[in-house]
């Protein structure tokens, strides 16, 4: 019987609401708003309230998947990166860098988001960068 309460910050948007995870025997079973957090003051939106659900979801992607002939197959990261780089080069050569867009995510760290936009601007050569938290 191991019950822990872990304070964290909601990762869904840029507001930064304080959340409290209820962890029972190492399994995340619930999310609560942090009462004393200065940002949300004990309140959350529906996304924040359900923050724990995707962690244990069976639908969660855990491996890179490669779509060939309409079907997804599990591949390792090396292969996934090789294929992506090869295809991106083909697309850029045929249609120009602005035919590529980079979508980043609030589920990544600030640093990863920085790297992704740097990759879009400096490597690919496009300003097509967008983010799910641009509410």
């Amino acid at each position, binding site marked *: *019987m*191991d*019950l*822990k*309460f872990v*304070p964290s910050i909601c990762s869904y948007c840029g507001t930064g609401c*304080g959340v*409290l995870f*209820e962890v*029972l*025997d190492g399994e995340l*079973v*619930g999310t*609560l*708003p*942090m*009462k*004393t*957090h200065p940002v949300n003051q*004990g*309140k*959350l*939106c*529906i996304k*924040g*309230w359900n923050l724990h659900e995707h962690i244990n979801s069976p639908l969660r992607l855990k491996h890179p998947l490669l779509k060939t002939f309409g079907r997804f197959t599990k591949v390792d990261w090396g292969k996934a990166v090789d294929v992506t780089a090869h295809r991106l080069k083909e697309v850029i050569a045929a249609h120009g860098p602005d035919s590529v867009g980079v979508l980043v995510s609030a589920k990544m760290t600030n640093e990863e988001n920085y790297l992704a936009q740097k990759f879009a601007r400096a490597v690919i050569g496009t300003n097509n960068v967008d983010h799910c938290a641009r509410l």
Partner: protein
Amino acid sequence: MTPIQQQVKNWLEEKRVDIFLAYRILDGHPLPHAFTREHIEETAELVTGPARYSLEKFATHIASRYPAARIGMVARDCNQRALNVLRVWNQLKDGQVETVPVTCCPSHLHHHADCSYLEPHPAGAVKQQLGQAPNQSLAEVEAQPAAERLDRWLYEFQKCIKCYGCRNICPVCFCKECSLEHAELIGTGHLPPDIPIFHLVRAVHMAGRCVDCGLCEDACPAEIPLRLLYRKVNAIVKDLFDYETGSGDTLPPFSILGDKPTMSPMPLLAAAQE
């Protein structure tokens, strides 16, 4: 060590309880914490306030996984009422939870709240003009003309962002299936949700269940005065069935579990007719 810290330490050492729910300060925030025998030294960090979380809800989560667990917790009056309701509804076994009482909300015994969230705060200008101020008494709300009262409630309800926070935080909401998520009862895919049905469905389900702890109102991002609404629902239950929610050992009159109604309908009316 404070007397409460010592008491909790003793309870854990004597194996009177297996786990004790209270609070401790973490990163400057008072957060709920489960104290155990394995980490007995943590009892020196135990605090009882000022934040208030639904400790009894955590207790039901433990009890559903470990039915034999003996659980201790610090309890304000509202926690105690919620524990009574949860016991009556078989979410916790008789004697499974032992409480250390702590001070809490204002009442006729002490006028100042130790739990700062529940101090009635005056409503702003717009809310005063269009909505229902949360610090009103039921008599004040009922003194409003019916049409105006309806308008004011509808103004409050249309602010709803359907976060389900009122249900999620509620210590006595434990149903596996919730009417508020039933697509045939409440329309899906638009905001605000169907008003006033969304809020009234919840209000009806709070009759004989709500312990007036105020956590829903505290968690509402739209500041809908839910406590006022549920207080009215429970006042009706009290008037018609003489049932005081959270105090007794009997199921509320609306219980459909079992073969027969648990209470006679309208005892006051029957008494008046005699």
